[in-house]
């Protein structure tokens, strides 16, 4: 066997690939489910916190700023480990999926709050005053006048951040969630052949290459003329 054959037999072994493809596809679906859960809860929580912050209640705002800073400074894997390995010692168990979901949602929440808030503050004060003077309430102003303008501003940074955090779903493999990487690693130790890892890497490319290209497009499409 030449070196090239050996390489093909290791990384592109068709027999192993056929055997483990179903598991990788299951993992692919699980990655998508986990990613969607994180995006929905993370963005919703982030927007909610930015809206609460606009009420300008001092102690509440300090708390929000602290929370945001905390989850921007902590590595996601550390948060996952704290939830998954730490909570059982206190008599409370979270599944691997729930730990990863909660941890990455908190991280996305922090980044999203920061971006939404920057968007809200970027809307000129005159917009607030004009809307309020037409008789809209504070919440109506926020909902119908300020947020629509703010959200448009936040689309490019938010897209990029969301993509980056969604890729963190791979971290869930550390807490035994059989998403793509978890399924691939299980396949490698089962077959003693790295082909499942190749499949896993390809699955991630299929999932994230279009997203990365989309992010690049959104960045130019929504770019602000300076």
């Amino acid at each position, binding site marked *: 066997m030449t070196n090239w054959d050996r390489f093909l037999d290791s990384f592109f072994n068709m027999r192993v690939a056929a055997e483990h493809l179903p598991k990788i596809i299951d993992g692919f679906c699980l990655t998508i489910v986990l990613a969607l859960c994180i995006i929905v809860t993370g963005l919703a929580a982030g927007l909610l916190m930015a809206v609460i912050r606009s009420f300008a209640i001092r102690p509440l705002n300090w708390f929000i700023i602290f929370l945001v800073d905390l989850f921007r*400074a902590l590595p996601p894997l550390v948060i996952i480990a704290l939830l998954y390995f730490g909570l059982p010692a206190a008599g409370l168990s979270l599944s691997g999926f729930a730990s990863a979901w909660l941890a990455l949602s908190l991280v996305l929440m922090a980044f999203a709050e920061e971006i939404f808030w920057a968007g809200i503050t970027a809307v000129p004060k005159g917009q607030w005053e004009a809307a309020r003077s037409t008789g809209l309430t504070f919440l109506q102003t926020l909902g119908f006048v300020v947020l629509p303008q703010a959200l448009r501003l936040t689309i490019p940074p938010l897209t990029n951040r969301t993509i980056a955090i969604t890729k963190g779903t791979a971290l869930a493999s550390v807490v035994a969630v059989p998403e793509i990487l978890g399924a691939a690693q299980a396949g490698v130790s089962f077959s003693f052949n790295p082909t499942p890892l190749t499949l896993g890497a390809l699955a991630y490319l299929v999932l994230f290459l279009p997203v990365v290209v989309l992010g690049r497009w959104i960045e130019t499409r929504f770019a602000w003329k300076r």
Partner: protein
Amino acid sequence: MTFEDFALAFFSLDILRQAWPILLDGLIATILLSLTVVPLGLIGGIVLALLSTVRHPLVRWPLMAWVDTFRALPPLVLLVFVYAGLPFAGLEVTAWTAVAIGFFLNTGAYYGEILRAGIESVPGGQMEAARSTGLTRGQAMAYVILPQAVRNVLPDLISNTLEVVKLTSIASVVALPELLFQARQAQSVTYNATPITAAALAYFLLLWPVVRLLSRLENRQLAGQR
């Protein structure tokens, strides 16, 4: 779960007293690791950004494919692929080497995108003016274009560096004894989450100043884009 259980499981001073030498080793390794992978990524990024100024399609398209591929693959997937895959190709790699390779590929692509945007933000007249004063293309790039490019994208560079430092925690997956790995070791021996809490606290104290700085810079950036 009473409050006391919780405090004992996450904030036990006894456990901390036993675990801190191990944690300190981990912290030092994390700092060393960061000081290794950040310069590596920056070097890769500068090379990619400089290549992106070449307009030839034979350079342009492979470069874009390279950058998008390594931005699409989750860093943990790259790391596991390098660490668990390469031995099958007859290349034994240590955890440090695997981390260095994985981070070089991943963070290099990110730094490359940021620096490319920076170079593109410098007006073309700068290069022409610099060349007309007698500087070579390389000199003009090094002394005129790059300094301005770096200044223009400084917030993004700092933000990416913060992410890279946080990301070093994934090295724990390949048993490199950095902060999270050491904390996990101590946690599994004592069956108490205090070491992980302590590690989280260390990350937070180390990175909080950077987060504060970034939050200021980013707010200014988004507000200035209107």
